[in-house]
Each structure stands twice: as structure tokens, then as C-alpha cells.
């Protein structure tokens, strides 16, 4: 029994169709990622799942009593609205203070509860958003480019936390991400979206699908290469001492690798 099921869903703003006949479903405990170019309807699909956009055709069916935790792409809090972190955590349902403190602790931001939401840094804000979404003990967690504005270590920590969340709460996670290398390593299933579902399946299957390659072009290769480079790279970092000793060879290696690495990264982002 799926947590949420989308059948033949079409959504449009005005005359323009954003989603065309989309079919998908999320099962309990899965980590699913949606990838797709800009304007492919990723955020719209997520918003359709929570019921925030009018459905033109088809339907979205949720399991009975489904609890959804939603972390939006961005959340602008009006500066006229005073809001402490603790108060934000208790919206809309009042949560026990101990639970709020525990959730913030878990999210790695234990000392923020008295701060104003508008005073938080981008990374702190994302962590608070995630902590709030988790407080309601969701069956399904929706993350819309939740690592936007985080630096590399920050987003790596964020994804580690996501995996930990699934292990702890057993909730399903559906995320939209641009960081293809992370997607490839962290998901059970990938849905490649471009107005319609181009292809879906395990990361390996999607990465080798012609539809996916057509969308991301050589960038795909870059992303997979980057993923492997990242492995090599961290390995290199671990062998920092060796690098210091045997200089000329190591240097040549670094010089050869780094520009390619950089180029691949530029193509992806």
C-alpha cells in the first residue's frame, strides 16, 4: 500500500501546462529523488502532493491519516512578523517544550530556540525547517531543494541527517535535488521529470536511460564522473601525508585531475 499515489496528474498555470499525465507513487520508508532541468515541474509536483496547486486532470490519493512533513525550497518570513524559533516549531500544533528542545538538538542547532527566525543564517534556517517538519513525526517527508544555500560540508551533513531520519523514524522521503552526485548515492529510486516522467528506477537504471542522458547530456557523464572523483578526492585527502612527501608525482596527479574535476562541477551546476 503506497503512502501517496499520483495517477495521470496534469497541472497547469493559465494556458501553460507544467505537468502532463504524471504517474508515480511513494511507498513506506523509501528515499525517492526527483531530478529534472529547471522548469520541469519538480516543485509543482511536490506542491501538488500537499494539495497546494489545483489539479487539472487526474488525482492525488493519500493514505488515510497521512502525516506530511514539508520543507519548502525557500521560506521568506515577513520582517513584520515576530517569530522565535521555539514558536515556529510549535506551528500549527503546540508541541511540548522538551520535544522542541530535543528536535533542535537532533538537528544540530540546540541553542537557537530564543532567536528570531529572521536572524538565522541560511544553514541554521534549513535545519530548523527540517526539525519542525520532523516534530510532527511524518510518514512522508518532502524536501524541495532543501540544501539550497548550504555549502558542501553543510549539505553533506544535511543528507547524512536525512538518512539518519529514515533509520530513526522509518518515514519515506521524497526530495528534489540538483546535486546529482548526492542523488545517485543516497536514493532508493530516482524519478527523472521533464513535464512528464521521462524514466524512473534505481539510480543506476536511470543514469543509463537514454531519456535521462538526453536531458542532462554530457552533464550526466560529468555528474557520474564527479561522483567517482569525489571518492578519489576524499581518498586523496586521507593520504595528505603521502602527498607532502612524494611531491612531484602527487602534484602532477593533482594538477591533472583538478581542472577536469572543476570543469565537471561547472557543467553540473
Amino acid at each position, binding site marked *: 500500500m503506497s503512502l501517496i499515489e499520483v495517477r495521470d496528474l496534469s497541472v497547469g498555470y493559465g494556458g501553460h501546462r507544467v505537468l502532463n499525465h504524471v504517474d508515480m507513487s511513494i511507498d513506506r520508508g523509501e528515499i525517492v529523488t526527483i531530478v529534472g532541468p529547471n522548469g520541469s515541474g519538480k516543485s509543482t509536483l511536490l506542491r501538488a502532493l*500537499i494539495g497546494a496547486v489545483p489539479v487539472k486532470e487526474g488525482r492525488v490519493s493519500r493514505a488515510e491519516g497521512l502525516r506530511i512533513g*514539508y520543507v519548502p525550497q525557500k*521560506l521568506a518570513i515577513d520582517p513584520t*512578523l515576530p*517569530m522565535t524559533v521555539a*514558536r515556529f516549531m510549535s506551528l500549527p500544533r503546540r508541541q511540548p517544550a522538551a520535544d522542541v528542545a530535543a528536535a533542535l538538538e537532533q538537528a544540530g542547532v540546540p541553542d537557537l530556540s530564543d532567536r528570531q527566525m529572521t536572524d538565522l543564517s541560511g544553514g541554521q534556517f534549513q535545519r530548523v525547517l527540517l526539525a519542525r517538519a520532523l516534530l510532527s513525526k511524518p510518514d512522508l517527508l*518532502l524536501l524541495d531543494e532543501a540544501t539550497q544555500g548550504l555549502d558542501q560540508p553543510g549539505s553533506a551533513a544535511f543528507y547524512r541527517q536525512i538518512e539518519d531520519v529514515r533509520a530513526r523514524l522509518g518515514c519515506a522521503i521524497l526530495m528534489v535535488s540538483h546535486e546529482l552526485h548526492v542523488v545517485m548515492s543516497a536514493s532508493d529510486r530516482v524519478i527523472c521529470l521533464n513535464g512528464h516522467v521521462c524514466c524512473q528506477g534505481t539510480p543506476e537504471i536511470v543514469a543509463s536511460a537514454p531519456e535521462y542522458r538526453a536531458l542532462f547530456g554530457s552533464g550526466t557523464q560529468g555528474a557520474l564522473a564527479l561522483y567517482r572523483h569525489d571518492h578519489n578526492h576524499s581518498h586523496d585527502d586521507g593520504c595528505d601525508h603521502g602527498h607532502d612527501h612524494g611531491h612531484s608525482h602527487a602534484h602532477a596527479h593533482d594538477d591533472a585531475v583538478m581542472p577536469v574535476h572543476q570543469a565537471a562541477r561547472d557543467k553540473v551546476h
Partner: protein
Amino acid sequence: MLDDFMIRAALAGLGVALAAAPMGCFVVWRRMAYFGDATAHASILGVAIALALSVSVFLGAMVMALLMALAVTALSGRGYAVDTLLGVLAHSALAFGLVAVSFLSGVRIDLMAYLFGDILAVGATDLAVIWGGAALVLALLAWRWAALLTATLNPDLAHASGIDPRREQLVLTLALAVVVAVAIKVVGVLLIAALLIIPAAAARPFARTPEGMAVIAVIVAALSVLGGLQASLLHDTPTGPSIVCVAALIFAGSAFGSALRRA
């Protein structure tokens, strides 16, 4: 005790302050200042129609304010910028209202009393209507508070929690229409928006939570009402505008104080 007109005026003003201040916080948070203005201006048309049909002025003003608010909500997002739309509707409604009042040749009505309020002429019935309306607004806001706040913060977050932001918008619109109707007698249609916005704006620098801001706004509004009444009695000035002047002075003090604190 209710025989004294000053006591009645103070009670009427406090009743309006109690409802208008928390409502005004939502007006400020949702950036609906012009929306409040348009709704209030439209109510003069309701007053004219009510007088022509000889029904309750409160009722006429409330229905018209509600219709105006619903019209703005329905029309916004259909090609016109919201401020343009509000500019058109607010002033058209005021103009039509003033023209409609001029047709009421049979009745000699004091237009000034509706434009600027006539708090010193509040009777026992008015008092009952004002406190009834204020209690209704407060009950509505208290009942929907968490949902209203979530929908105000972000409509998508509300959806994800199973709250329909459009429904909450409707609740606010209804509450706003009631506030406008009960405030006409106190400050008049031209200054209702001031009573909504100024106390909330003055409260903002000293509030850490939404609830705190609503409470401080109520205190500011109550002080404005009492101070304005006092000033109008001492200096023989029009009462409605005097109340708004006191509120504006408190706002100036609040803005100055928060600037000093930040410096």
C-alpha cells in the same frame, strides 16, 4: 454609570481597540493595509444603502465591507496589480458612497459622523453592538489562531499541515468586515485603517512572538482610545482623529525607542 457619555465613549473605544488591534496585526503581517483601507471606505456605501432602506447601519456597513473584501480577493491575480485594484475599488466605493448619501434628501444625516466617527454620541445599543462584534472577532481569531498564523507565515506550509489557506483568508475577511462595521461609530470610515495598523506597527519592535505583538497592540490601542478621549475633552478637538493622533504619537515613540536601542 452607563448614563455618562464619557464612560460610554470609553467603553465603546476599548471594545473596538480590543478587536481592531489583533486584527490589525494580521493586516500588517499579510501586508493588507490597503485592503483594510478599501474595505473601510466601501462601508460608507453600505451606510448610505442602510439609511435608504432604513435598516441597521452596522449591518449595512458590514455587508458592504464584506462584499468589497470578497470582490478584491476574487479579482486579485487576474491581470491587475493588487495595489492598482485596491486604488480603483477603494476610492470608487468611497465616491459612490458619498454620491449615494447625497440622494438621501429625505433624511438629514450628518455625513461627518460617518466619515470621522461620533464616539461621544454612542448609545447603549451601540455599545452592545460594538462589544458583541468585538467578542465575535476575538472568538473567531482565538479559534483559528494557529491555522491563521500558519497560513500567514506560508501557504504551502499550511497546506502540508492540512490547513486550507483560502479558508483562513475568508475567516480574516469576515473578521475584518465586522471590525470595520463596529469601528465606524468610533473613528469613522476614513480612519478605521489607522486604528488597525498603527497599534500593530507600534507594537512590532517590542514583540518577540506573534501573540506578544497582538497583546502589546491591544495595550497601545487602548491607551490611544483613552488618551484621545481625554485630549478631545481638554482641547475640544474631534474625538476620532484625536484617538488616531495619540496612536501616531505612540508609534513615533516606539520607532524612536527601537532606533535608539539598535544604535
